[in-house]
């Protein structure tokens, strides 16, 4: 630098320290779990780390009986996440398309949808449980819990799609129709490619909200647990670093999902802009 740097004000240092503490608080616990999971067979639940090794991560995959039904719970949560994601994307997209025009009762439906975000999650879970009980249907992860997750993901996704279509230039569609495209062709060739990046965001959002959802699932997952419920159960009866290994593996998985989503987003955004 040729020009001398201007002296930074005191507030810069104060805010920098504050931000540092924030980051530490955000990621510190995760790193503690990450480090504690990489121990040898003599590892314990607390610091100090006794030896380095992948013993507990390996134990997740080869000694399931010791740490509960982790594999099956993971599969259930994964599958549920994908179902929630698919339903969320399709329904939010169609709702977004519908809400581009004002129709009779549109604001009522809007508030009805959004209010699900305000009601305490436990009450929603309880309500769904009671309703299932009342009609005499067993609660299950793929029925009642799926519904519970959608009460959480759909309003969020709906809000995002409203914002997306708010900024969407209607003349693109008009031009497409003018050039001979049917409603479906205009959707397929013009609307869908233009909003694809936003849809990927909605998909990622839907998946992660479902994948780590605890409260709304807690009373309605039925006989078999989703992964967050299973992990919560383990904290009370698993006394080895296998618990931390589980945390590490699921975190790595979450990050890879985010990475895939960003790659896809980049791909579509690049196609859209030069």
């Amino acid at each position, binding site marked *: 630098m040729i020009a001398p740097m201007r002296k930074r004000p005191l507030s810069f240092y104060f805010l920098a320290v504050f931000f540092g503490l924030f980051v530490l608080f955000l990621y510190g616990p995760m790193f503690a779990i990450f480090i504690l999971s990489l121990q040898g067979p003599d590892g314990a639940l607390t610091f100090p780390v006794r030896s380095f090794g992948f013993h507990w991560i390996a134990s997740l995959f080869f000694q399931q009986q010791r740490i509960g039904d982790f594999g099956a719970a993971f599969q259930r949560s994964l599958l549920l996440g994908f179902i929630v994601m698919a339903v969320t994307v399709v329904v939010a997209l169609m709702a977004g398309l519908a809400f581009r025009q004002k129709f009779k009762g549109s604001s009522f439906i809007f508030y009805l949808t959004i209010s699900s975000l305000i009601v305490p999650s436990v009450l929603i879970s309880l309500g769904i449980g009671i309703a299932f009980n009342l009609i005499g249907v067993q609660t299950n992860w793929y029925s009642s819990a799926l519904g519970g997750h959608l009460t959480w993901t759909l309003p969020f996704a709906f809000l995002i799609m409203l914002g997306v279509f708010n900024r969407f*230039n209607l*003349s*693109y569609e*008009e*031009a*497409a*129709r*003018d*050039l*001979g*495209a*049917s409603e479906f*062709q205009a959707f397929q*060739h*013009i609307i869908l*490619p*233009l909003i694809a990046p936003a849809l990927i965001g909605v998909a990622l959002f839907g998946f992660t909200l479902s994948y780590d959802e605890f409260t709304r699932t807690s009373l309605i997952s039925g006989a078999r647990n989703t992964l967050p419920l299973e992990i919560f159960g383990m904290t009370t009866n698993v006394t080895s670093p296998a618990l931390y290994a589980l945390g590490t593996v699921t975190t790595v998985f979450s990050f890879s999902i985010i990475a895939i989503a960003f790659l896809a987003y980049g791909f579509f955004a690049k*196609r*859209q*802009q*030069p």
Partner: protein
Amino acid sequence: MSNTPVSPPTQLGLAPSPSASGSTTRQTIAASTQGVMLRSVMKKYGSTVALEGINLDVPAGSYCCLLGPSGCGKTSTLRIIAGHEEATSGDVMIGDRRVNDLSPAKRSTAMVFQNYALFPHKTVWQNVEFGLKMRGVNERERKPRVDEMLDILGLSKFASRKPSMLSGGQQQRVALARALATRPQVLLLDEPLSALDESLRVKTRGELRKLQRQFGMTFIQVTHAQDEAFSLADQIVVMDHGHIDQIGMPQEIFNAPASRFVARFMGDNNIFVGQVTSVAADGDARLIQIEADGLGTFLCRGQAADVGTTAACCIRADRMQVTPLSSAFDPTQPNQVAARVVSVEFTGYVTRVSLVIEATGQEMLYKVSTHGWMTQPLNEQQLVCLQWSTDDCIFLSH
């Protein structure tokens, strides 16, 4: 928006070329063209009337400009012809077909949108191809037609670019190419020049006119700028508040505005409103005398007027003689007023002189060539006499 066109206008290929390609182009692109006819077309939005039953004939192969201030109904008219809006009642005819119930694509029209509405995720080539693809033209036939359109509009070297990488003028040509590629019989243009800056607008105006002549196609264009309409149109349709005020050739509209609104909208007209005091036969026309309180009397020619009714006349800012006010000024003589010079503005070829008639406070405008002004300049605050002949005084019936 960049206004640096990559190719100079001479390379656009718009000029009719002496080679054979010129005539084949014309044949392949405009196999036929149709006129447009509106009969009692009305449009309501809820209880608001946007168009109050308009009638319009646009001859095949002509260039028609719908001109008026924003909210006058010109864009609604264009969109009703295109099929993007439905007329509440009335008939829209293209050629001899009634097209009210047809989709935009089935009307043989194509539209150039105000901000072009080029698909941002498609290349220039794909944008131009889109209409053909949607109409089910097979790939082998699509390619030469797209290439031809890009060639005609001088866009070949931008074929693989995205629209956002082009300047405003180039984007405008892509929009034209995309609309023309479907071989429409009528081209509809919604303020096609409004997104361009001044110098580019004048240049592109010339290109549009050439393109229309080259294809011999009916063009209907919406604009709010009179100079644009004057330079482009065979026929100008002046609209106001959902009705047509005047239809005519540019010279007619300019020389003989039919109403106070048109006279005002064209600019540079001095309008006097008063009572009709006498109507006398004068050959085919009538000699009409209008008396305005505090201004004097005005004589003009018109078709018909009733004594006692309110009417107006106008005189163009450049059709008056100005002389210093002298004791010879006789306020009882028609077609003259006394006024005070308020300000003098030099604008190049023309000098604009603002005046005020002190008796009533009405403002006036006098335009004179700068050369003429230099030979006989007047001072600000000077009292002058403005005079004009009966032939230049235009009767405005409403």
